Protein backbone atom coordinates (compact mmCIF):
# COMPACT_ATOMS: atom_id res chain seq x y z
CA UNK A 1 0.00 0.00 0.00
CA UNK A 2 1.47 3.26 -1.06
CA UNK A 3 0.32 6.76 -0.22
CA UNK A 4 2.62 8.72 -2.54
CA UNK A 5 0.01 9.07 -5.35
CA UNK A 6 -2.38 10.64 -2.84
CA UNK A 7 0.24 13.15 -1.64
CA UNK A 8 1.09 13.93 -5.26
CA UNK A 9 -2.60 14.57 -5.88
CA UNK A 10 -2.67 17.16 -3.06
CA UNK A 11 0.51 18.73 -4.41
CA UNK A 12 -1.15 19.00 -7.85
CA UNK A 13 -3.87 21.15 -6.27
CA UNK A 14 -1.20 23.35 -4.64
CA UNK A 15 0.47 23.80 -8.05
CA UNK A 16 -2.93 24.64 -9.56
CA UNK A 17 -3.49 27.30 -6.89
CA UNK A 18 -0.04 28.72 -7.65
CA UNK A 19 -0.90 28.83 -11.36
CA UNK A 20 -4.10 30.75 -10.61
CA UNK A 21 -2.19 33.32 -8.54
CA UNK A 22 0.37 33.75 -11.34
CA UNK A 23 -2.51 34.13 -13.80
CA UNK A 24 -3.67 37.16 -11.81
CA UNK A 25 -0.23 38.72 -12.28
CA UNK A 26 -0.39 37.88 -15.99
CA UNK A 27 -3.66 39.78 -16.31
CA UNK A 28 -2.64 42.70 -14.06
CA UNK A 29 0.68 43.33 -15.80
CA UNK A 30 1.42 46.23 -15.54
CA UNK A 31 4.38 46.02 -17.94
CA UNK A 32 5.35 43.59 -20.68
CA UNK A 33 8.24 42.40 -18.52
CA UNK A 34 5.86 41.51 -15.68
CA UNK A 35 3.73 39.48 -18.08
CA UNK A 36 6.84 37.75 -19.42
CA UNK A 37 7.82 36.78 -15.86
CA UNK A 38 4.32 35.41 -15.22
CA UNK A 39 4.32 33.41 -18.48
CA UNK A 40 7.79 32.02 -17.73
CA UNK A 41 6.63 30.91 -14.31
CA UNK A 42 3.45 29.30 -15.70
CA UNK A 43 5.65 27.31 -18.05
CA UNK A 44 7.73 26.02 -15.15
CA UNK A 45 4.58 25.15 -13.19
CA UNK A 46 3.37 23.05 -16.13
CA UNK A 47 6.61 21.03 -15.95
CA UNK A 48 6.15 20.54 -12.20
CA UNK A 49 2.54 19.47 -12.80
CA UNK A 50 3.66 16.92 -15.42
CA UNK A 51 6.13 15.51 -12.89
CA UNK A 52 3.33 15.15 -10.34
CA UNK A 53 1.08 13.40 -12.89
CA UNK A 54 3.81 10.75 -13.22
CA UNK A 55 3.56 10.07 -9.50
CA UNK A 56 -0.26 10.12 -9.45
CA UNK A 57 -0.84 7.87 -12.47
CA UNK A 58 2.41 5.87 -12.26
CA UNK A 59 2.81 6.32 -16.00
CA UNK A 60 5.92 8.06 -17.15
CA UNK A 61 4.48 8.94 -20.56
CA UNK A 62 3.98 12.45 -19.08
CA UNK A 63 7.73 12.97 -19.20
CA UNK A 64 7.79 12.62 -22.99
CA UNK A 65 7.02 15.84 -24.78
CA UNK A 66 5.88 14.05 -27.93
CA UNK A 67 3.47 12.00 -25.86
CA UNK A 68 2.17 14.93 -23.86
CA UNK A 69 -1.38 14.36 -25.06
CA UNK A 70 -1.54 10.87 -23.58
CA UNK A 71 -5.25 10.64 -24.40
CA UNK A 72 -4.53 10.57 -28.11
CA UNK A 73 -2.30 7.52 -27.78
CA UNK A 74 -4.09 4.16 -28.10
CA UNK A 75 -4.31 2.48 -24.72
CA UNK A 76 -2.19 -0.55 -25.62
CA UNK A 77 0.64 1.71 -26.78
CA UNK A 78 0.78 3.70 -23.55
CA UNK A 79 3.70 3.22 -21.20
CA UNK A 80 3.41 0.27 -18.86
CA UNK A 81 3.03 1.01 -15.14
CA UNK A 82 6.42 1.39 -13.52
CA UNK A 83 8.17 -1.57 -12.02
CA UNK A 84 10.34 -1.43 -8.97
CA UNK A 85 13.41 -3.51 -8.28
CA UNK A 86 12.84 -6.52 -6.04
CA UNK A 87 14.66 -5.13 -3.00
CA UNK A 88 12.52 -2.04 -3.20
CA UNK A 89 9.29 -4.03 -3.18
CA UNK A 90 9.64 -5.05 0.47
CA UNK A 91 7.00 -3.19 2.55
CA UNK A 92 9.56 -1.41 4.75
CA UNK A 93 11.53 -0.05 1.79
CA UNK A 94 8.33 1.03 0.02
CA UNK A 95 7.41 2.97 3.14
CA UNK A 96 10.81 4.69 3.32
CA UNK A 97 10.72 5.71 -0.36
CA UNK A 98 7.12 6.90 -0.01
CA UNK A 99 8.07 9.14 2.91
CA UNK A 100 11.13 10.53 1.09
CA UNK A 101 9.05 11.17 -2.05
CA UNK A 102 6.21 12.78 -0.10
CA UNK A 103 8.54 15.18 1.71
CA UNK A 104 10.21 16.18 -1.58
CA UNK A 105 6.87 16.61 -3.37
CA UNK A 106 5.31 18.71 -0.62
CA UNK A 107 8.43 20.87 -0.21
CA UNK A 108 8.58 21.44 -3.98
CA UNK A 109 4.89 22.33 -4.23
CA UNK A 110 5.19 24.60 -1.19
CA UNK A 111 8.08 26.49 -2.76
CA UNK A 112 6.07 26.86 -6.00
CA UNK A 113 3.14 28.33 -4.06
CA UNK A 114 5.37 30.72 -2.08
CA UNK A 115 7.02 31.81 -5.34
CA UNK A 116 3.60 32.48 -6.88
CA UNK A 117 2.59 34.59 -3.87
CA UNK A 118 5.88 36.48 -4.22
CA UNK A 119 5.22 37.11 -7.91
CA UNK A 120 1.88 38.64 -6.95
CA UNK A 121 3.05 40.50 -3.86
CA UNK A 122 6.41 42.10 -4.66
CA UNK A 123 6.55 45.67 -5.91
CA UNK A 124 8.76 45.71 -8.99
CA UNK A 125 9.61 43.36 -11.83
CA UNK A 126 13.06 42.46 -10.46
CA UNK A 127 11.68 41.45 -7.08
CA UNK A 128 9.07 39.33 -8.84
CA UNK A 129 11.84 37.61 -10.76
CA UNK A 130 13.63 36.81 -7.49
CA UNK A 131 10.48 35.01 -6.42
CA UNK A 132 9.87 33.19 -9.71
CA UNK A 133 13.41 31.80 -10.10
CA UNK A 134 12.81 29.94 -6.86
CA UNK A 135 9.93 27.99 -8.42
CA UNK A 136 12.04 27.13 -11.42
CA UNK A 137 15.11 25.87 -9.67
CA UNK A 138 14.15 24.58 -6.24
CA UNK A 139 10.41 23.86 -6.53
CA UNK A 140 10.45 21.98 -9.82
CA UNK A 141 13.86 20.48 -9.00
CA UNK A 142 12.51 18.94 -5.78
CA UNK A 143 9.44 17.51 -7.52
CA UNK A 144 11.60 16.02 -10.28
CA UNK A 145 13.93 14.60 -7.62
CA UNK A 146 10.89 12.93 -6.04
CA UNK A 147 10.12 11.28 -9.38
CA UNK A 148 13.74 10.13 -9.69
CA UNK A 149 13.92 8.65 -6.18
CA UNK A 150 10.61 6.78 -6.25
CA UNK A 151 10.79 5.35 -9.78
CA UNK A 152 13.43 2.69 -10.27
CA UNK A 153 13.88 2.78 -14.01
CA UNK A 154 17.04 4.08 -15.68
CA UNK A 155 15.08 5.54 -18.58
CA UNK A 156 12.92 7.61 -16.26
CA UNK A 157 15.82 8.77 -14.09
CA UNK A 158 17.83 9.80 -17.15
CA UNK A 159 14.86 11.76 -18.47
CA UNK A 160 14.34 13.45 -15.10
CA UNK A 161 17.96 14.58 -14.98
CA UNK A 162 17.62 15.76 -18.59
CA UNK A 163 14.63 17.89 -17.59
CA UNK A 164 16.50 19.35 -14.59
CA UNK A 165 19.55 20.08 -16.78
CA UNK A 166 17.45 21.87 -19.39
CA UNK A 167 15.74 23.91 -16.65
CA UNK A 168 19.13 24.90 -15.22
CA UNK A 169 20.48 25.87 -18.65
CA UNK A 170 17.51 27.84 -19.94
CA UNK A 171 16.14 29.54 -16.80
CA UNK A 172 19.07 31.94 -16.16
CA UNK A 173 19.26 32.98 -19.80
CA UNK A 174 15.55 33.81 -19.88
CA UNK A 175 15.88 35.63 -16.54
CA UNK A 176 18.90 37.58 -17.79
CA UNK A 177 17.16 38.63 -21.00
CA UNK A 178 13.94 39.70 -19.26
CA UNK A 179 15.83 41.49 -16.48
CA UNK A 180 18.26 43.32 -18.76
CA UNK A 181 15.51 44.40 -21.17
CA UNK A 182 13.35 45.63 -18.30
CA UNK A 183 16.27 47.54 -16.73
CA UNK A 184 17.40 49.18 -19.98
CA UNK A 185 13.80 50.04 -20.86
CA UNK A 186 13.69 51.92 -17.57
CA UNK A 187 11.40 49.74 -15.47
CA UNK A 188 10.41 51.48 -12.26
CA UNK A 189 12.34 50.20 -9.26
CA UNK A 190 10.57 49.45 -6.00
CA UNK A 191 10.50 52.42 -3.58
CA UNK A 192 12.40 50.23 -1.13
CA UNK A 193 15.45 50.15 -3.44
CA UNK A 194 18.50 51.39 -1.55
CA UNK A 195 21.00 51.96 -4.35
CA UNK A 196 21.73 51.61 -8.05
CA UNK A 197 25.46 51.21 -8.61
CA UNK A 198 25.06 50.83 -12.36
CA UNK A 199 23.62 54.32 -12.62
CA UNK A 200 26.43 55.69 -10.50
CA UNK A 201 29.02 53.80 -12.62
CA UNK A 202 31.16 53.00 -9.59
CA UNK A 203 30.92 50.83 -6.47
CA UNK A 204 29.53 52.80 -3.58
CA UNK A 205 28.27 51.76 -0.20
CA UNK A 206 24.59 50.90 -0.09
CA UNK A 207 22.87 52.30 2.94
CA UNK A 208 19.68 50.72 4.23
CA UNK A 209 16.54 52.82 4.01
CA UNK A 210 15.89 52.48 7.73
Amino acid sequence: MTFLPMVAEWASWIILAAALIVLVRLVLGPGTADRAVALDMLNVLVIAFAGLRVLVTQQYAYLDVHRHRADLVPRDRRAQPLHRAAWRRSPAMMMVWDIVGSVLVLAGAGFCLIAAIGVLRFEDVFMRMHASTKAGTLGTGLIMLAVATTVDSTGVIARVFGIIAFLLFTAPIAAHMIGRAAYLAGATLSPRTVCDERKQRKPTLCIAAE
Partner: protein
Amino acid sequence: MNIFAINLLVAVMWAMLSGEITLTTLGTGFVIGFAALWLLQSLFGRDAYFLRLPRLVWLVISFLWALIRSSWRVAHDVVTPRARNNPGVIAVPIRTRNETETLLLSSMISLTPGSLTLDLDETGETLFVHAMFAEDADAVRADIHETLETPLLEALS
Protein backbone atom coordinates in the same frame (compact mmCIF):
# COMPACT_ATOMS: atom_id res chain seq x y z
CA MET B 1 41.47 13.88 -19.92
CA ASN B 2 43.02 10.48 -20.64
CA ILE B 3 42.48 9.28 -17.09
CA PHE B 4 38.85 10.36 -17.31
CA ALA B 5 38.47 7.97 -20.27
CA ILE B 6 40.01 5.12 -18.24
CA ASN B 7 37.68 5.95 -15.37
CA LEU B 8 34.66 5.81 -17.71
CA LEU B 9 35.90 2.50 -19.11
CA VAL B 10 36.11 1.06 -15.58
CA ALA B 11 32.56 2.26 -14.91
CA VAL B 12 31.21 0.59 -18.07
CA MET B 13 33.13 -2.62 -17.31
CA TRP B 14 31.77 -2.66 -13.77
CA ALA B 15 28.24 -2.22 -15.08
CA MET B 16 28.67 -4.99 -17.65
CA LEU B 17 30.16 -7.38 -15.10
CA SER B 18 27.33 -6.77 -12.66
CA GLY B 19 24.93 -7.96 -15.35
CA GLU B 20 22.76 -4.90 -15.82
CA ILE B 21 23.64 -1.48 -17.20
CA THR B 22 21.72 0.99 -15.06
CA LEU B 23 22.59 4.39 -13.63
CA THR B 24 23.24 2.79 -10.24
CA THR B 25 25.78 0.27 -11.50
CA LEU B 26 27.45 2.89 -13.74
CA GLY B 27 27.67 5.30 -10.80
CA THR B 28 29.09 2.66 -8.49
CA GLY B 29 31.60 1.65 -11.16
CA PHE B 30 32.69 5.27 -11.61
CA VAL B 31 33.26 5.80 -7.88
CA ILE B 32 35.17 2.51 -7.57
CA GLY B 33 37.17 3.35 -10.69
CA PHE B 34 38.08 6.77 -9.30
CA ALA B 35 39.19 5.21 -6.00
CA ALA B 36 41.31 2.60 -7.79
CA LEU B 37 42.93 5.17 -10.08
CA TRP B 38 43.53 7.44 -7.12
CA LEU B 39 45.48 4.66 -5.42
CA LEU B 40 47.54 4.19 -8.60
CA GLN B 41 48.24 7.93 -8.89
CA SER B 42 52.01 7.58 -8.84
CA LEU B 43 51.86 5.55 -12.08
CA PHE B 44 50.40 8.46 -14.04
CA GLY B 45 52.43 11.22 -12.47
CA ARG B 46 50.73 14.36 -11.23
CA ASP B 47 47.52 14.75 -13.19
CA ALA B 48 45.08 17.61 -12.80
CA TYR B 49 42.20 15.13 -13.00
CA PHE B 50 42.54 14.04 -9.38
CA LEU B 51 42.25 17.66 -8.24
CA ARG B 52 39.61 18.69 -10.74
CA LEU B 53 36.95 16.10 -9.97
CA PRO B 54 36.76 16.79 -6.20
CA ARG B 55 36.70 20.52 -6.98
CA LEU B 56 33.84 19.98 -9.43
CA VAL B 57 31.92 18.08 -6.74
CA TRP B 58 32.71 20.90 -4.30
CA LEU B 59 31.36 23.46 -6.80
CA VAL B 60 28.06 21.56 -7.06
CA ILE B 61 27.75 21.27 -3.27
CA SER B 62 28.61 24.95 -2.80
CA PHE B 63 26.04 25.98 -5.42
CA LEU B 64 23.29 23.79 -3.93
CA TRP B 65 24.02 25.24 -0.49
CA ALA B 66 23.75 28.80 -1.85
CA LEU B 67 20.50 27.81 -3.61
CA ILE B 68 18.89 26.41 -0.47
CA ARG B 69 20.04 29.24 1.78
CA SER B 70 18.89 32.06 -0.49
CA SER B 71 15.61 30.28 -1.35
CA TRP B 72 14.86 30.09 2.33
CA ARG B 73 15.58 33.80 2.77
CA VAL B 74 13.37 34.86 -0.14
CA ALA B 75 10.57 32.47 0.94
CA HIS B 76 10.72 33.91 4.45
CA ASP B 77 10.32 37.42 3.09
CA VAL B 78 7.34 36.35 0.95
CA VAL B 79 5.34 34.72 3.73
CA THR B 80 5.98 37.15 6.59
CA PRO B 81 3.82 40.30 6.54
CA ARG B 82 6.65 42.75 7.29
CA ALA B 83 8.91 43.30 4.29
CA ARG B 84 12.60 43.05 5.14
CA ASN B 85 14.01 43.45 1.64
CA ASN B 86 16.26 46.32 0.60
CA PRO B 87 16.77 45.69 -3.10
CA GLY B 88 19.56 47.35 -5.02
CA VAL B 89 21.74 47.07 -8.11
CA ILE B 90 25.28 46.19 -7.10
CA ALA B 91 28.50 46.25 -9.13
CA VAL B 92 30.40 43.00 -8.59
CA PRO B 93 34.01 42.90 -9.86
CA ILE B 94 34.75 39.45 -11.30
CA ARG B 95 38.00 37.60 -11.97
CA THR B 96 36.84 35.20 -14.70
CA ARG B 97 39.41 34.49 -17.41
CA ASN B 98 37.20 33.87 -20.44
CA GLU B 99 33.65 34.22 -21.71
CA THR B 100 32.59 30.68 -20.77
CA GLU B 101 33.46 31.30 -17.14
CA THR B 102 31.64 34.63 -17.18
CA LEU B 103 28.56 32.93 -18.66
CA LEU B 104 28.63 30.16 -16.05
CA LEU B 105 29.12 32.60 -13.18
CA SER B 106 26.34 34.94 -14.29
CA SER B 107 24.00 31.97 -14.81
CA MET B 108 24.73 30.63 -11.32
CA ILE B 109 24.08 34.08 -9.85
CA SER B 110 20.74 34.26 -11.69
CA LEU B 111 19.77 30.74 -10.60
CA THR B 112 20.11 31.55 -6.91
CA PRO B 113 16.96 33.37 -5.79
CA GLY B 114 17.63 36.80 -4.36
CA SER B 115 20.24 37.73 -6.95
CA LEU B 116 19.83 38.38 -10.65
CA THR B 117 22.47 39.28 -13.24
CA LEU B 118 21.31 42.37 -15.10
CA ASP B 119 24.27 43.46 -17.17
CA LEU B 120 27.99 43.17 -17.87
CA ASP B 121 30.06 46.30 -18.34
CA GLU B 122 31.96 46.97 -21.59
CA THR B 123 35.28 45.66 -20.31
CA GLY B 124 33.73 42.41 -19.06
CA GLU B 125 35.18 42.89 -15.59
CA THR B 126 32.12 43.94 -13.65
CA LEU B 127 28.73 42.28 -13.36
CA PHE B 128 25.73 44.36 -12.36
CA VAL B 129 23.62 42.23 -10.05
CA HIS B 130 20.17 43.05 -8.73
CA ALA B 131 20.19 41.78 -5.16
CA MET B 132 17.14 41.46 -2.96
CA PHE B 133 19.02 42.09 0.29
CA ALA B 134 21.46 44.87 -0.54
CA GLU B 135 21.73 46.51 2.88
CA ASP B 136 25.44 45.82 2.75
CA ALA B 137 26.84 45.86 -0.79
CA ASP B 138 30.24 44.57 0.35
CA ALA B 139 28.62 41.56 2.01
CA VAL B 140 26.81 40.69 -1.24
CA ARG B 141 30.07 41.00 -3.18
CA ALA B 142 31.92 38.84 -0.66
CA ASP B 143 29.13 36.23 -0.69
CA ILE B 144 29.17 35.86 -4.50
CA HIS B 145 32.96 35.80 -4.42
CA GLU B 146 33.19 33.05 -1.78
CA THR B 147 30.30 30.71 -2.54
CA LEU B 148 30.20 30.88 -6.35
CA GLU B 149 33.19 32.54 -7.99
CA THR B 150 36.09 30.92 -6.15
CA PRO B 151 34.79 27.30 -6.40
CA LEU B 152 33.99 27.88 -10.10
CA LEU B 153 37.46 29.23 -10.91
CA GLU B 154 39.11 26.40 -8.99
CA ALA B 155 37.00 23.73 -10.69
CA LEU B 156 37.83 25.04 -14.16
CA SER B 157 41.52 25.80 -13.58
